[in-house]
C-alpha cells in the first residue's frame, strides 16, 4: 500500500531544526484519522505555520494525494534552516509547497485573509522564560514563554484572519497551555472546537484540537463538559 504520511527516513534533518517527535506524530495521526473529511472538504489552500522539518505539511500533501486537483500548499517558519529542511523533505516525497521565511504569517495576512481552508500548527508550546521566545534556531521550535502561550496567543488571531468561511485549524496543545481557555477564546471569535486526538507520553499530555467556524453551541457544550471533567479529576 502507498504510504499515507511522510517517511521518517526521508525527512531532512539539521542540528538547528526540530526533528519529528511525539507531538508531530500526534498531529499527523490526527490528520490521518480525519483524512476522509479532509478529502471531502476539498481545500484550495492549505497552510502550515512553523513547518520545521517539513514532516507535517509533507504528510498532509501525501495523504491528500498529488494527482488531479492539488491545493496550494504554503508553509512558514521563522528559522531559515527549517525552511531548507522542509524543501528537502518535500522534494524527497515528490510534493510541492511554497515557503516563506517569516514570523508566524507576517506579510501574508492582508492578501491571504479569509482564504485558508486548512491550517495546521504545531506551535512552540513548552513553558519557558519569556526571553527565550523567538530566539534564533531550534529554540524557536519549542520555547513558548509563560504557560507556553506566548506564540500560541499570537497564532490564534492570525488563524482567525486567515481561515476561510469553511476553514479548519488543527493545533497541538499541551495541558499546561490551558486548552480549555484556548477553546473559549476561539469560541468568542465564533469557532467550535473538538479534541480529535489525545495522547499522553512520558513527558507530556498532548491534545490535538480542531477548530472551525460554527455558531452551533452543542459541540461547544460537550467540549466544556469534557474539560470540566478533566479539571475535576
Amino acid at each position, binding site marked *: 500500500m502507498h504510504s499515507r504520511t511522510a517517511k521518517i527516513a526521508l525527512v531532512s534533518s539539521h542540528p538547528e531544526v526540530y526533528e519529528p517527535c511525539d507531538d508531530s506524530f500526534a498531529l499527523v495521526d490526527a490528520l490521518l484519522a480525519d483524512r476522509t473529511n479532509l478529502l471531502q472538504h476539498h481545500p484550495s489552500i492549505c497552510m502550515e505555520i512553523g513547518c520545521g522539518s517539513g514532516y507535517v505539511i509533507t504528510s498532509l500533501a501525501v495523504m491528500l494525494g498529488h494527482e488531479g486537483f492539488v491545493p496550494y500548499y504554503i508553509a512558514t517558519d521563522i528559522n531559515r534552516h527549517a525552511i*531548507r529542511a522542509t524543501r528537502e523533505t518535500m522534494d524527497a516525497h515528490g510534493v510541492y509547497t511554497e515557503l516563506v521565511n517569516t514570523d508566524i504569517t507576517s506579510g501574508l495576512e492582508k*492578501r491571504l485573509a479569509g482564504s485558508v481552508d486548512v491550517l495546521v500548527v504545531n506551535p512552540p508550546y513548552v513553558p519557558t522564560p519569556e526571553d527565550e521566545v523567538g530566539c534564533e534556531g531550534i529554540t524557536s521550535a519549542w520555547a513558548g514563554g509563560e504557560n507556553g502561550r506566548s506564540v500560541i496567543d499570537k497564532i490564534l488571531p492570525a488563524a482567525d484572519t486567515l481561515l476561510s468561511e469553511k476553514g479548519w485549524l488543527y493545533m497541538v496543545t499541551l495541558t499546561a497551555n490551558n486548552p480549555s481557555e484556548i477553546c473559549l477564546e476561539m469560541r468568542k471569535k465564533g469557532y467550535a472546537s473538538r479534541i480529535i486526538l489525545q495522547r499522553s507520553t512520558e513527558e507530556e499530555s498532548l491534545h490535538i484540537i480542531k477548530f472551525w467556524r460554527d455558531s452551533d453551541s452543542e459541540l461547544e457544550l460537550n467540549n466544556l463538559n469534557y474539560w470540566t471533567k478533566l479539571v475535576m479529576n
Partner: protein
Amino acid sequence: MRLLTHNMLSSNIKGVANGFPLKIEVVTVVEKEVEFNIEFLKKMFSKVEWKALAEASRTMGYTELPENADASMLDSDDFLHKFHHALLELHLEEGALVCPETGRKFPVNKGVPNMLLHEDEV
C-alpha cells in the same frame, strides 16, 4: 517562489499603509512544469489581484498576460493556459521583493522570500 505567492505577499513593515504589490527584482527565473487544473485556476482567479500578476509576470519576462481580465475570460482555453503558466510555473529563484512605499528589499534566495523584519521595523 511562484507568482501566486508573490500575489499573496505584502510589505509587513510597521507604518506602511500601501505594501502591495511588492516590486520584483529579478536575478534568476526558473520555469517548472505544473499539472494544468481548470478548477484550481478558477478558484484562484477570484483571489488574485490581476494587475499585480500581469505586472509581475512581465517583470519575469513573460508578456502574454492581458492588462485586464474578468471572469468571462475563464472560458477561453488560451487564457487559462497563460494564466496557469504565469501563476504557477514561473518561479523567482533569486532576487528581491521591494516594498513599494519604503524601498526596503526582502531578499529571495533559493526560491524563498525572507519577510523577517529588523527590530525597528516591527
